[in-house]
């Protein structure tokens, strides 16, 4: 039999198919058929099916709310996670003219002042509703992940913006609710946000 090597990624794709079909009611005949279609992965397919068969099928359902035990060696796990994910482009509004920024702000039910505060890291990111992240992403044609990364990483730019030689550096952040309350937003926009934040 040919010993053509098959990549682990290809094996993972095949096993995903096998798993789906087993969960949907595949017979032994069907599993053997899949194994015949992929001779380079025959052993993996058959052994996966047998392991699946030997498992009892009961597990932690996605509907069950669970707080699992903190993994051992979690510090190492987190180090590996951050190395694996890598940095994300955190550019949010650089290069946009004021009219465009004003339009984006209005469409997201905030104003230009609040948008600037967000971009400069003067608003605590964890106080921002996720819906605003999504709206900014839609308006700026950016992935939500990039928008959030930008908002949560704005600390890096904040001090550069507000440093004045000989002057006082301000590092104070406000919550999004505080920014809304102190803004010049129209009443309906103000209420829209405060109803959510104060619920």
């Amino acid at each position, binding site marked *: 039999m040919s010993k053509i090597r098959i990549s682990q990624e290809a094996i993972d794709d095949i096993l995903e198919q096998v798993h789906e079909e087993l969960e949907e009611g595949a017979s032994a005949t069907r599993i053997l058929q899949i194994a015949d279609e992929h001779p380079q992965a025959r052993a993996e397919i058959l052994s996966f099916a047998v392991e699946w068969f030997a*498992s009892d099928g009961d597990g932690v359902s996605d509907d069950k709310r669970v707080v699992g035990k903190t993994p051992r060696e979690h510090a190492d796990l987190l180090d590996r996670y951050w190395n694996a994910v890598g940095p994300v482009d955190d550019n949010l509004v650089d290069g946009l003219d004021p009219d465009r920024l004003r339009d984006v702000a209005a469409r997201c039910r905030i104003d230009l002042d609040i948008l600037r505060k967000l971009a400069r890291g003067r608003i605590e990111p964890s106080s921002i509703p996720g819906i605003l992240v999504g709206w900014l992403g839609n308006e700026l044609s950016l992935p939500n992940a990039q928008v959030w990364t930008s908002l949560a990483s704005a600390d890096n730019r904040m001090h550069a913006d507000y440093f004045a030689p000989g002057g006082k550096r301000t590092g104070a952040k406000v919550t999004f609710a505080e920014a809304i309350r102190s803004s010049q937003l129209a009443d309906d926009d103000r209420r829209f946000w405060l109803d959510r934040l104060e619920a």
Partner: protein
Amino acid sequence: MTSKHSIGIVAPLTRISKHTGEPYVRPPNVSSQIRAVLDLPMDQAFDLARGGRLYPQTLVYLMRNFRPNQRDPRHDAIVLAFFARLKSVGERIVGGLPETQRDWVDGLVADKVMQWLPTDRMDAFEVSFKQTAERLYLSELRKVRVRTRDEVSREDLVEPDSGMTGEEAADALASRPASTTPLAEARAQLSELYEALTDRERLAVGYHLELGLTEKETGDLIGCSDRHVRNLIKSARAKARGEERPARRSAGRKE
């Protein structure tokens, strides 16, 4: 309750199933929960996720779409909640293994997830966390078995058989469904018997009786002789009949 203002802002899944050619889709209840969670300030959303009060798929969504570029305690807590949940699913599959093998499988699963993190393979967790976690554990368990199959203890060997063939030994399980019957049905029917079997007995039954492989093929996959496969089948048959078997050490059988 679905927030109408959140409609259209949930990042879509991008992976296409190699099997069906269709894009991955979250279950409706998960999409609805994500939209509801996005109505909240992110610290409340993170608290709910960390506290296990959201679907695991929603947890994964927050982990993937709300990550800063520098270390952050709130995000770290969500990452640890993800791995804790992953391990909870895996415990049902590897809980009966010796601790060293269990840790080995846990490590391999974590390695695989680390490879997946920057890719759209993580979409699978947002479709079904349980099924994806199970698949990872079953796949990595298989690899650990292959690497340890030559370490069979002599105590695992049963007495020499009396000349009975594997085919004859299958009569206790003869009420098994035909090979066109869904394996899920057979699994449910045999679940009580399987609880009494050792890992190697389960594998022998699975390969030889359920998939119909020969004793030699089964032995090659398990890592033993065809004679030993016959002994394993005989032992499983005896248990199916409720016969007592001599005590033997079984490294992997769950209590």
